């Protein structure tokens, strides 16, 4: 069997596409960075791939709101292609800005009738961009990306990452459905790692099928031990990072 292929969809301002492609390749896949315009011109490009990933960055300069223009471009020009990709069993991953795009395109947590977003990512309560490492707890359920993952650390880097739902009832419904699969945990001193004020410490969510995942932390930035801020003297330098299993799970699921 040929190696699974991951399409890394980039737009102007996407700046995490190279390391995301690298992460899929380290996990045993073949990754191709494809510009959104190229895919819009030829949606059939997606047929060659089993995984589609929207990486982090500041797509279109985050003008209007994070991910908004990218999401509009996707829905206006690629909605059919994305739905088709999902419906034929493709995996979809959105990281940071890409998570914001998935919520706004309606691929994640949308109202099944109206298609309206039932959740969004608001400005951090601090009002500031933050780059730091957080402890995370995964409750994977049927989310294919997080299988076998429990507690681990990853970096976050965002200004708009505060997960909020349209209503408390929506939150309870997503919770009951097992879609709130990744949460900020506590550090060694027992302090909360929630960096943005997210409801219920939610860091990542999946769709009903578990085949679409959006998350604020950056798994592609912890593929090797040496990317950890305290690796030196504490981790074997050649060891894998805690983010690699997420990509390996995706590759395995479509192999």
């Amino acid at each position, binding site marked *: 069997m040929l190696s699974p292929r991951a399409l890394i969809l980039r737009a102007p301002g996407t700046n995490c596409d190279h390391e995301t492609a690298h992460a899929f390749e380290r996990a045993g896949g073949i990754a191709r960075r494809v510009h959104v315009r190229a895919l819009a011109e030829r949606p059939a490009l997606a047929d060659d791939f089993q995984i589609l990933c929207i990486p982090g960055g500041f797509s279109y300069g985050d003008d209007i709101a994070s991910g908004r223009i990218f999401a509009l471009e996707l829905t206006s020009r690629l909605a059919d292609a994305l739905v088709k990709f999902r419906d034929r069993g493709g995996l979809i991953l959105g990281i940071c800005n890409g998570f914001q795009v998935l919520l706004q395109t309606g691929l994640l947590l949308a109202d099944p009738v109206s298609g309206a977003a039932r959740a969004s990512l608001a400005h951090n309560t601090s009002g500031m961009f933050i780059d730091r490492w957080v402890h995370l707890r995964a409750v994977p359920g049927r989310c294919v990306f997080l299988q076998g993952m429990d507690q681990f650390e990853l970096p976050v880097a965002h200004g708009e990452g505060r997960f909020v739902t349209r209503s408390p009832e929506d939150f309870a419904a997503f919770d009951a459905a097992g879609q709130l699969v990744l949460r900020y945990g506590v550090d060694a001193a027992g302090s909360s790692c929630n960096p943005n004020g997210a409801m219920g410490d939610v860091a990542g969510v999946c769709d009903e099928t578990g085949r679409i995942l959006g998350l604020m932390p*950056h798994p592609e930035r912890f593929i090797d031990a040496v990317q950890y801020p305290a690796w030196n003297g504490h981790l074997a330098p050649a060891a894998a990072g805690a983010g690699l299993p997420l990509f390996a799970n995706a590759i395995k699921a479509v192999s």
Partner: protein
Amino acid sequence: MLADFVLEASRQRLFHAITDCGAGGLSSAVGEMAATLGAEVDLDRVPLKYDGLSATEAWISEAQERMVLAVAPADWDKLARVAADEGVEATAIGTFTGAGTLVLRWEGRTAGELDCHFLHEGRPRRRLASRYVPPAVAPVAWTGKADDSLSACLLDLLGTPDIASKEWIIRQYDHEVQGCSIVKPLLGPGAGPADGTVIRGVLGRDRGIVLGVGLRHRLGTLDPYQMAAGGIVEAIANAVAAGADPARIALLDNFCWGDCRREESLGTLVEACRACYDMAVAFAAPFVSGKDSLNNVFAWTDAGGTHHERSIPPTLLATAMGQVEDIHRVVTPDLKHVGNRLAIVGLSRDDLAGSQLELVGRVRGGRVPEVDATACRQVFESVAAAQRAGLLAACHDCSDGGLAVAVAEMAIGGGAAARIELAGVPLQAAGNAPNGSALHSDLTIAFTETPGRFICEVPAAAADRFAAHMNQLLASQGPHMPWAWIGEVIAGDQLEIVSTTGTFAAVSVANLARAWRGGT
């Protein structure tokens, strides 16, 4: 978008030269690129944001986010395709002609024509006078309170703006984007400060790029030569501590100066430039680029109608770029393991002028710390060799706040305790601390800022090999680079400093961290 476009066009090798539109807009960018070839520019093809601009305005507009590229005609279609893909507007505005003349056209007419040689070389050279009079060295005066202590000084020093944690600003920048940062600005279990930072050149490969910076701005008004030289040495030391090969350093300068039409300001600039030359030669480290911001002057008229002008202190920010063969082998400054030994490499001198100890009100006057480039080079080579040989667990240069602040920062980063003994520190006392009490001697050793010194954490099992390595260099290279064991990583939660008279100063690492983070 523009950056994505340039990177992709570069990857496909679709242009020969590139200049960004900064001061002077197209006039400067095209003018520089066409300095020898000459060019014809159709200014009416330049995309404008507003109607009604003149040819002159199109030529000198400093609108941002614009680049001028030299593109072979055969590559134009490919370049235009990349621009369209990236959502960037690319317009052909002219041709490099080879005629040595710069011709500007506007709506079919010639709007300007000048010989390039005349344009670049024709203007008369400006002559400015400079004068430099070194300020007199003030006698040393100890100005601390009677009940002062090593611990009180250390806690005060950790909170000065130069030394205190920069975490509040570091966290607001994405310093991990693209996944290549290997030694980050905050590191270790305690998120302490780094010396230099290390960036993996290409994902998945072992080679790394090391960046270090140095700034000795408090020396600027005292001795601009030593300010600049000390900054350059600090930048290289930071890079070497982070694993850079000292034989392969490239430098950048960033001059921030006052009104250089004043003879005195120009005099300090000449002193700093002499230092740049001397250091570049001494360390075989070329300046590959730089930046200047001159004429930083504040002018005002007081209530009595008198005009005043105040220039900023002469300031050089130096950046050192280095390389490391294998990022997996670098060491960071945070303390690692109980039982490891601590060594200082490099000679300390009792020159406290411009020091952080002066800033916190403990001392005034004295001489500024001087760079001994020969000694620094040998210290750099010895530390780099020890690191290559795997003899180090941690390495930190001594800069602002000297030895004691360096060890405190290592303890904060590692969340580890340590003991150091000041009596063992190799010191060249020039008698610059007269009338000093025992405390004053201790403060001098603990906090003097002599350039070109490192604290090394050495695994206990490697201590003999480290000592042999250093002693061999000491024997072969003469007395330039003394070193000594000064302490060890200990169990517990305190930094203990044993004074020259055998008394103990002890501060918990938690309190050190709190002071460094701006708490009380």
